[in-house]
């Protein structure tokens, strides 16, 4: 077997956040390499470097043994590197043939060339066992078919290193098995296949080699047959020492109840398929899971910005399934959204105005004229209580660091006094100190009797804070654990093929 791709010491930062931190990777022709890791471990970033979309800050890449500097997608393609991205790079109003022709020049007059491309697509489809109509428009075919278009497109440009970014995430089980069989066939004919995934089953059944990444670093490169599921999960999620478990509390009267909740993503694909859970007074219920299993949709349905397709959401026993966000707030709900500046804060308003925003709507700061003095006073109290570092209540929220902005959101959402809080990835992107501050605020709120639903992709956070844990996988709660939960069992359910 010859080495197709070798990367070493690759580092890439985005706005000061290290997505890749000295990662390395190696792939050989004729083999399927699984690249395994949690969300945000750096798998996609590493492969985006290979296909020329990201320029690495540091590190070296060698293709077929000779060192290269890949300076763009066109260059990567010329080197025989092709990637099927998780978000397909297809132009929706164009036909299948036009999309394939965009990336592949066959020469000749354009109209003849298009016909030739269509013919070639059909030939590839015959070889791969696909069924595609070259004249169909992309927006009229299914997700699985779009993926096949991507694969044909990439193969047609002479790809010998094929990278697939979580290809089975959008497929049904049957479709996934068929795709993986096709991939095996390609490897047997000499292609080096890189399969980015977080599913252990795929690694065991289809990969010859597995590279595991965690937090931007490569932590293992092994034969999957030599690794047990437990060992792989451990390498993926790490075995950071748990902080001293706070005493389990809660189990009081149920404040937030969700029954058989169903919802769809923007593109209509089902995201929640019957989620049921209940959060009691003085309790933190943690929702653990790999990103993309319905977390965002769950949080948005609870906030009231996405409509539920079925099921029930009740606050203190009252049905609020289709209430608008204001009604939910009056029902006692506070929300900490994952994207602070999308649903949380208005960047160009002052700290005090952002703090008072929800109170204003509830009429706490006057019904017609704004009681700005009171709002300012409350804001100052919150700045002290939550240790928000800023130049006073009048400073612009845009100038707050991520951690302080998050503390401001948290202070506001807890100030309503409703005592039900939905927090989605509340510490995402925060540094260690801000992270600890936010987490201790959540614990304090629980101590005061709040019911907290913590939706987080950070397993350590969920394990540390939650009194009960539900594992969200493919839009369902597939298991519930009481504190103290077994890390590996939670991890197995997260990545398992439930």
């Amino acid at each position: 077997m010859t080495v197709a791709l070798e990367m070493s010491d690759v580092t890439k930062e985005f706005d000061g956040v290290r997505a890749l931190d000295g990662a390395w990777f190696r792939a050989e022709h004729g083999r399927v390499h699984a690249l395994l890791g949690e969300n945000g471990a750096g798998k996609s970033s590493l492969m985006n470097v290979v296909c020329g979309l990201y320029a690495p800050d540091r590190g070296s890449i060698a293709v077929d043994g000779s060192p290269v500097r890949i300076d763009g997608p066109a260059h990567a393609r010329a080197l025989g590197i092709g990637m099927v991205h998780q978000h397909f790079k297809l132009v929706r109003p164009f036909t299948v043939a036009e999309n394939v022709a965009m990336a592949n020049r066959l020469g000749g007059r354009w109209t003849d060339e298009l016909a030739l491309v269509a013919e070639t697509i059909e030939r590839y489809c015959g070889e791969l066992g696909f069924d595609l109509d070259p004249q169909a428009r992309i927006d009229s075919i299914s997700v699985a078919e779009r993926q096949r278009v991507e694969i044909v497109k990439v193969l047609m440009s002479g790809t010998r290193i094929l990278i697939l970014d979580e290809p089975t995430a959008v497929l049904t089980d049957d479709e996934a098995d068929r795709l993986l069989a096709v991939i095996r066939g390609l490897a047997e004919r000499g292609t080096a296949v890189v399969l980015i995934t977080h599913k252990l089953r795929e690694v065991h059944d289809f990969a010859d080699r597995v590279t595991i990444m965690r937090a931007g670093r490569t932590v293992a490169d092994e034969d999957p047959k030599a690794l047990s599921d437990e060992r792989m999960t451990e390498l993926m999620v790490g075995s950071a020492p748990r902080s001293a478990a706070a005493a389990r509390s809660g189990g009081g009267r149920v404040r937030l109840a969700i029954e058989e909740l169903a919802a769809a993503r923007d593109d209509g694909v089902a995201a929640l398929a019957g989620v049921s859970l209940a959060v009691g007074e003085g309790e933190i219920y943690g929702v653990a899971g790999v990103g993309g299993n319905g977390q965002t949709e769950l949080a948005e349905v609870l906030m009231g910005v996405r409509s539920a397709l079925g099921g029930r959401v009740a606050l203190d026993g009252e049905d609020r399934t289709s209430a608008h966000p204001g009604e939910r707030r009056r029902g006692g709900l506070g929300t900490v959204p994952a994207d602070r500046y999308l649903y949380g804060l208005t960047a160009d308003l002052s700290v005090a105005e952002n703090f008072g925003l929800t109170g204003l709507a509830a009429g706490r700061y006057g019904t017609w004229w704004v009681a700005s003095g009171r709002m300012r006073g409350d804001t100052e109290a919150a700045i002290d209580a939550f240790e928000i570092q800023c130049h006073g209540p009048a400073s612009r929220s845009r100038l707050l660091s991520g951690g302080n902005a998050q503390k401001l959101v948290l202070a506001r959402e807890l100030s309503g006094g409703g005592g039900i809080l939905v927090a989605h990835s509340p510490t995402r992107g925060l540094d260690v100190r801000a992270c600890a501050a936010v987490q201790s605020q959540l614990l304090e709120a629980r101590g005061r009797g709040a019911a907290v639903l913590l939706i987080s992709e950070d397993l350590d956070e969920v394990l540390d804070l939650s009194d009960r844990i539900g594992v969200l996988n493919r839009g369902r709660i597939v298991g519930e654990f009481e504190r103290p939960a077994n890390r590996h069992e939670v991890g197995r359910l997260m990545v398992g093929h439930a």
Partner: protein
Amino acid sequence: MIEFLANWLAFTPVFAVPLLLATLGLIVNERAGVINLGAEGMMLCGALAGVACYIEFGESTAVGMTAAAFAGLLIAFLFAFVVVVLRADQVVTGITIVFFGAGLTGLIGLRWNDTAIAGFRKLDLGFLSEIPFFGKVVFAQDAMVYLTIPIAFGVWYFLFRTRAGLNLRAVGENPQAADAAGIAVDAYRFCAVAAGGVLCGMAGGYLALAAAKIWVNEMTHGRGWIAIALVIFARWMPGRAVLGALLFGGIEALIPRIFAAGWPVPQYFLQMTPFLATLAVLVWVGVAGKRRSAAPGALGLPYVREDRW
């Protein structure tokens, strides 16, 4: 009545051509994902350059139109540099170009202000032009009217029948996909803006050399803005742009006819009609637009390769 109709229809192309040229230019821009609100400014620069060079270099309409195209190109380079290379906000930059064009031509144009010119002449196609009614309407237009037809066809052919046209539309629909396919997104956008500038400049030049036969400050009178609305009316299709331009050209051609006929309609109301019609078209598009919008997917969005969030 027949004579009124013949006069009206005979005058329609003169007003339709500048609208069509500008609309075609904007379609090329917007198909590549760049929204160009600066059409008015580019047309003004084209109009002044056209008239000035016509007067200074031997009263040739060919020289005038070439100069107009070149002036549009220069302004388009400026616009493209700011929005494609520097990735500035396209809307704000476009509006800036309008005022820049108006101010610049006002300053430079003093020398040629209010000088009447002969400009484009109607062609005499012999016996064809003698045919009653049709001769006057179809076979007695100036050369540029006949030249605009292949230009419109050429834009359609380029966009929908060539690889470069497909690439350009891909850049406007989904620059991420185009980039991953190895298409140089910025180069396509830059060239599209340049081509759009040439067409807008020619639109202005023709307006001054054929329709107005004079240069006066801010003589485009909002036609650049009407062209922007026509792009939406045309659903970004060159063929429908021809229809839209004829419709609006017809409305504009009607105004002087009504004056000439001496009908008692308030002057300002008449001058308002093209804009009323524009508004009506936009309302119609909004109400009838139940199908998914035909607008390019990435219209107005700068493309940054490593933009993750």
